[in-house]
């Protein structure tokens, strides 16, 4: 067939099977699904991570609370010790004062006993 023949005899149109809409819709659906997966995955992941962190936070909060209780208990113990030591210090201070007073009483008694001994010695010399 010559060129002229081909020009004069245009090719008969091929039967149209219409394949074009399929890839478009497939691609569109795939992209939409992909976006939905991204969004869904984001939320699922975020929810999972948030829950995990919340669980850790709760655990920490419980532990911190327990620790706080223990520290309060220790603080109370220290306060009680402080009170007991303060009482002991006060009592020791009083004891020191009492011991000084006791020593003074001993000295006074010693002097009085000496005076009594002298007085009795004098009485021996009575007429």
């Amino acid at each position, binding site marked *: 067939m010559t060129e002229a023949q081909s020009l004069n005899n245009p090719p008969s149109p091929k039967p149209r099977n219409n394949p074009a809409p399929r890839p478009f819709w497939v691609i569109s659906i795939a992209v939409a699904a992909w976006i939905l997966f991204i969004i869904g995955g984001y939320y699922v992941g975020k929810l999972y991570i948030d829950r995990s962190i919340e669980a850790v936070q709760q655990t920490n909060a419980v532990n*911190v609370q327990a620790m706080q209780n223990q520290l309060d208990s*220790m603080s109370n*113990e220290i306060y009680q010790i402080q009170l007991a030591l303060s009482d002991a210090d006060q009592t020791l201070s009083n004891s020191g004062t009492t011991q000084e007073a006791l020593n003074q009483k001993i000295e006074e008694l010693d002097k009085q006993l000496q005076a009594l001994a002298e007085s009795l010695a004098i009485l021996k010399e009575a007429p």
Partner: protein
Amino acid sequence: MGWKLSLVIIPLFLLAPFFGMAASLIGFEQKAQALSLPILDLNEGVNSVEESLSALRHNAIIMNELVAEQEREYQEQQQILQELARRSQEHKQNSDQLYEERILAMLGPPVESFRSERVEIKVFKLDELGYRGYIAKVKLFDPRTLKVVLGKDTLGQTETTSSAVKRTGAVLGINGGGFYSSVQGGRTRVMPLGNTVIDGKLVNHDFSPSNGDVFFAGINRDGELIGGNFYSKESLMSLNPFQGVSFLPILIKDGQPLSVPKEWATTKQPRTIIGEYANGDFIMIVVDGRQSDWSSGVTLERLQIKLAELGVKEGYNLDGGGSSTFVFQGRTLNRPSDGKQRPVATNIVIMP
């Protein structure tokens, strides 16, 4: 066939990153627990500290109780000591009172008395076989009440005991130490014998060592009787004399009678004596003499016996004879042998 295969492969391809992400999140929860605070690890330490604190508190309480117990014991001991001191004081007062009663029983009832915050004086009559006189028992609460005064407060001058008592405002006065006349520059001065101390100072300026039996007798600043023979100024001043005069002899020392010169021992004369009881009270005695119808005087030997009977611990013979004078509250109680008071170089007075 190829189309169907692409329906499987393409989604798998697209979902591959999510599978990777999902895979990476597997076990994240357990791993996240690693972020929790290692409180449990601290618990042991905290518990240990808490136990230690509890034990410490327990020990502090025990220590407090022990200290409190010790404090109670101290207080109990203090009360016991206080009670002992009180009883000791009572016994001493009883002993002192008993001694005082014994002295007073020997002296008899007082005929005169005087008491102030500074001094207590009780005057007794002395009426023995052959001699009479007066005794003053003097309790000094303030040593400054006993004073030695020069005649007219001037060395070389004389003054009667009554005059000295009146001039000084004293309650009691007796004549003091011996004296002698000295002519200096045509003037006759009456000088105290031996050493005389007034207000802690020697009035003779120069110390006179004891000559023979001449003694110094007086009081120190504590009101205690001091006396004896002194051969150096240091030995006298070491006793811290406050007031004192000199004469002879010493009659009784430490409760024991001393030997007296023979010429003094057996002659009856008017006498003036100063002495001290064991409790520190002073005794001043004036015995009249040379008056046969009243009192012929007393020998020193007899006086020693009398002093011993009275319980006198120390006794010193002061100037006697016509000098012996006893003045109480302005009245001359004794009878001076000259019929009147003799002016003397020194007098001993007791201020109110």
